[in-house]
C-alpha cells in the first residue's frame, strides 16, 4: 500500500490561455485577513469542472464538490450553490463572463477542466477575482492517477485558500489516528490513517492489542506509536509504505510511551518509566543509542520538539501538578511556561514555531488551548467533558483533537477548531476515534 503518491508533475504552468502567465499572484484585492475578529465568510462559486472527454465526466462533479467542501469547511468561505449560478461554464478556455458571477455576488470563482485517459487524469483550474474581472494567480494543472482525484481537488483548494488568505496550504494532508470499537471497559483500538477530511480511511493494524498516540515522521513516511503487543507498553516504528513494524528502545522492566520525532526525523523523544518514575529520553534512530534528558522523581512526559529542533516542550508535575516546561533539546534546566489556573498537559509546538497547543483541565472541564512559547496570550479554544491531545494542521491554522463524551455510552471522536476558536467541527470517521496526528503537507 502506498500512503503518499506524488502527483507527477505536481504543477505545470498553463500557457496560451488568453490571459498570459504573468497574472498577479496574491496581490489582488481579493483577500481574507484571518484575525481574532468575527468575519463574514467570503462567497465563492465552484461550477462543476468541464469534462474534456467521456471518461472524465465521473470526476468533473466530484472534484468540484471536494474543492467546495475544503473551502467551506474552513468557515472562511461560503459556497454559492449551483442552483443560483447564472452562467454555465462549458469550456475551460472560453473567456469568463464575470458580470454573471458579480450578479450573484460570487467574489471568488474557480473554473476547471478534467481529462482522463487510461491510468492518468489531468486537472486544470483557474482562480478568479470576480470583482477585479481577472484571474488571481496563474492557472495550474495537476496530473496523477485516477485514484488520486481527491488529492488533486485538495491541491486546487489549497491553492485557492493560500492565495486568498495568505496562509500556507493544508487540505492535501493525512491524519493518523486510533480507530476505536467495543464497550468502554474493553475498548478495541487499531491504527488508521485518513485524508484530513475523513475520506480514504485505511487501517494499519488489527485490534488484538491496545495501540496509542501515533505520530507521523516529518516526511510522513514513518509512524511512531505505542503498543501493548508485548504485554507492556512500548514504542514502535512503522514504515508507512510497507507497514513493517519494529520496536524501539526495548529495555526489560521498563515501559516506553509518548514518542515523537525531531524535525529532522533522526531522533525520537519519548517517556521511559522505570520503578514508577517517568523521565524523558532521546533515541538516535540509526544508532539505537538513547540519552536521558530529564532526571527527576516527578512525571515527565508528552515531549514535543520546536520546529528548529533546538528545544523541547513537555509536561511535568514537578511543581505538584501537571504544568508545561521548555528545555534545550539536549536536556538540562527547564523553564515553566504555563501559569494559569488548573493543569496543563500534552503540549505540541506549532509547525511555525509561534504557539504551543495544549490540553487544560480546570474545574472539572477539559479544554484545548494555545499559548505563546513564553506562556503569554493563553487562549482556550474548546470546552467539554473531555477534550485532549491537540495536533496542528501543516499551516498552523487548525487544531485537531480528541473529544470524548461521558458515561457508559461515552465515545471518542475527532474534532477540529481554528486557532481563533471558531469553526469547531467533528471529523466524520467510520466509528469512534481518538489520538489524531496530522501529517505534513503531501508532496
Amino acid at each position, binding site marked *: 500500500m502506498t500512503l503518499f503518491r506524488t502527483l507527477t508533475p505536481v504543477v505545470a504552468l498553463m500557457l496560451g490561455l488568453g490571459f498570459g502567465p504573468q497574472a498577479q499572484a496574491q496581490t489582488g484585492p481579493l483577500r481574507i485577513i484571518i484575525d481574532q475578529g468575527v468575519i463574514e465568510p467570503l462567497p465563492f462559486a465552484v461550477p462543476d469542472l468541464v469534462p474534456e472527454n467521456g471518461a472524465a465526466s465521473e470526476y468533473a462533479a466530484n472534484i468540484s464538490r471536494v474543492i467546495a467542501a475544503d473551502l467551506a469547511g474552513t468557515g472562511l468561505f461560503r459556497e454559492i450553490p449551483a442552483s443560483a449560478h447564472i452562467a454555465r461554464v462549458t469550456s475551460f478556455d472560453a473567456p469568463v463572463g464575470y458580470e454573471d458571477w458579480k450578479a450573484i455576488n460570487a467574489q471568488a470563482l474557480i473554473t476547471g477542466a478534467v481529462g482522463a485517459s487510461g491510468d492518468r487524469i489531468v486537472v486544470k483550474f483557474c482562480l478568479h477575482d470576480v470583482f477585479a474581472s481577472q484571474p488571481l494567480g496563474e492557472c495550474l494543472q495537476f496530473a496523477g492517477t485516477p485514484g488520486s482525484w481527491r488529492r488533486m481537488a485538495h491541491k486546487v483548494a489549497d491553492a485557492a485558500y493560500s492565495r486568498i488568505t495568505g496562509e500556507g496550504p493544508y487540505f492535501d494532508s493525512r491524519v493518523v489516528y486510533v480507530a476505536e470499537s*467495543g*464497550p*468502554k*471497559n*474493553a*475498548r*478495541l483500538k487499531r491504527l488508521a490513517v485518513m485524508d484530513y477530511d475523513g475520506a480514504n480511511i485505511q*487501517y*494499519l*493494524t*488489527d*485490534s*488484538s*492489542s*491496545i495501540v*496509542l*498516540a501515533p505520530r507521523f515522521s516529518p516526511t510522513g513516511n514513518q509512524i511512531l506509536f505505542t503498543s*501493548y*503487543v*508485548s*504485554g*507492556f*507498553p512500548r514504542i514502535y516504528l512503522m514504515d508507512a509504505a510497507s*507497514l513493517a*513494524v519494529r*520496536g524501539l528502545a526495548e529495555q526489560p*522492566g521498563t*515501559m516506553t*510511551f*509518548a514518542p515523537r520525532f525531531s524535525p529532522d526525523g533522526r531522533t525520537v523523544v519519548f*517517556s521511559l*518509566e522505570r*520503578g*514508577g*518514575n*517517568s523521565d524523558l529520553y532521546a533515541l538516535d534512530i540509526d544508532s539505537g543509542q538513547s540519552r536521558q534528558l530529564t532526571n527527576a522523581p516527578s*512525571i515527565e*512526559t*508528552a515531549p514535543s520538539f520546536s520546529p528548529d529542533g533546538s528545544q523541547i516542550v513537555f*509536561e511535568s*508535575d514537578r511543581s505538584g501538578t*501537571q504544568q508545561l516546561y521548555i528545555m534545550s533539546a539536549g536536556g538540562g534546566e527547564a523553564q515553566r511556561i504555563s501559569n494559569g489556573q488548573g493543569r496543563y*498537559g*500534552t503540549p505540541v509546538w506549532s509547525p511555525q514555531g509561534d504557539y504551543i497547543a495544549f*490540553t487544560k*483541565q480546570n474545574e472539572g472541564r477539559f479544554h484545548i488551548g494555545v499559548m505563546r512559547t513564553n506562556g503569554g496570550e493563553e487562549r482556550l479554544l474548546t470546552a467539554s*467533558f*473531555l477534550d*485532549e*491531545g491537540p495536533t496542528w494542521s501543516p499551516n498552523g491554522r487548525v487544531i485537531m483533537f480528541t473529544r*470524548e463524551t*461521558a*458515561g*457508559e455510552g*461515552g465515545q471518542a471522536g475527532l474534532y477540529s477548531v481554528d486557532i481563533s476558536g471558531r469553526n469547531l467541527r467533528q471529523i466524520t470517521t467510520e466509528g469512534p476515534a481518538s*489520538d489524531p496526528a496530522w501529517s505534513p503537507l503531501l508532496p
Partner: protein
Amino acid sequence: MTLFPKALLLVAALGLAACNNPDRYGAGGADGAGGAGGFGAGGIDTMGLGDPSDPRSIAYFNQTVGDRVLFAVDQSSLSPEARNVLMGQSQWLATNPDYAIIIEGHADEQGTREYNLSLGARRASAVQDFLISQGVSPSRMRTVSYGKERPIEVCSTEDCYMKNRRAVTVLSMGAGV
C-alpha cells in the same frame, strides 16, 4: 494483516501466560473479559481459579485476600486499608511460592492519556515497593500501567472513578516473570 513478527507475538503470549484474572487485556485476549478458561486463542494458557474456600486457590486470593487496592484522586500513596490488603497478599505469596505476579496500575478517565500512564505506573510501583518491604522477592514481580485504557466501571462519576483508580495484583504460574 500481519503486523508483528511471530517471535514478538510469542513473547507476548509468554508475558501473559497463565493469567488468572479476568481483568486482562492484550494480544489474543481480544475482549478482555474472558475470565477463567476464557482464553482460547493465541497460545495463552488457561488456569483454573479453583475453589474459593481453598486458601491456596486463586479464587481465594482474588476474593478473600483481595487482589486490588484503590487510590485517591491523582495519588499513588497507599491507604491503611490498602496496606492491610497488601500484607495479606504478601503472606499469601509467601505460602504459595510457585506464583509470580504482574501488578497492573490504572487511572480513572479524568486525565490526559500520557499522564495517566505515568500515574498508573506510580501506583503499580507503590504496590511493588510495599510487597518488597514485606519480603516478596522482586524477581517474582513485574508492573504494567494501563493508564485510563481499561476502566472496570463505566460511569463518569466518582462512584465509578474510585473503583477505577486501582492497582490489581494478577497471579501467574512460574516464579520468574
